[in-house]
């Protein structure tokens, strides 16, 4: 179960995730980002209410990061402790900008 709450302000898009970002829900986020990423230059992904992430979720974050490096910036905010640890172990803490 994943809720995706998007807030758009000009070229800035904030995506707040709630629930689980796993193999079954990652395609929903991928499709949701694809809808409007072309016209975004500032992407914020808020993980405050995200409880769980697996490699399928990391794959979508990496793809978004690669896209945003060409057209603006991406920031990931508020990961919980266990998700932060996953970012550390996988080296994502150095390729993502985490605040």
């Amino acid at each position: 179960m994943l809720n995706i709450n998007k807030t758009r302000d000009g070229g800035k898009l904030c995506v707040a995730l709630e629930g689980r970002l796993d193999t079954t829900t990652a395609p929903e986020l991928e499709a949701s980002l694809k809808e409007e990423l072309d016209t975004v230059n500032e992407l914020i992904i808020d993980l405050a209410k995200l409880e769980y992430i697996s490699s399928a979720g990391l794959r979508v974050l990496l793809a978004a990061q690669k896209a945003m490096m060409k057209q603006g910036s991406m920031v990931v905010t508020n990961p919980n402790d266990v998700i932060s640890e996953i970012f550390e172990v996988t080296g994502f803490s150095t390729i993502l900008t985490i605040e």
Partner: protein
Amino acid sequence: MKTLTVKAKVHNLSRVLAFINKELDSAGCSKKSTFQIDVAVEELFVNIASYAYAPGSGDVTISISISEDPAVAEITFLDAGVPYDPVSKSDPDVTLDAEKRTIGGLGIFMVKQSMDELLYDRRDDLNITTIRKKI
């Protein structure tokens, strides 16, 4: 020991995790260990669902037993698909920058990092993949 047999299809992931989490819950497993075991189970199950029987289909049997003192969860995956040894899979380079990073191999790497043990055996044309973790 509790056992569940399902079709090795990605849409069964939530069923598999519900089965595992019920046992972890009743053993009083911490939230953090539950999270890490969920990730490991997802990565191994999705691998089997994606590759073991492709392009056909088949079953996977998952069993869980939890010992007391020390409390250790042991989860085993049995499938009759193509031989696949996750233990011998080489680790991805997690120091590369975003441009050069790919996601291949990351799931198994996460399993190796978060579990105390990842074991593989091939017996009677079956893949037997086991994870163990103190909870």
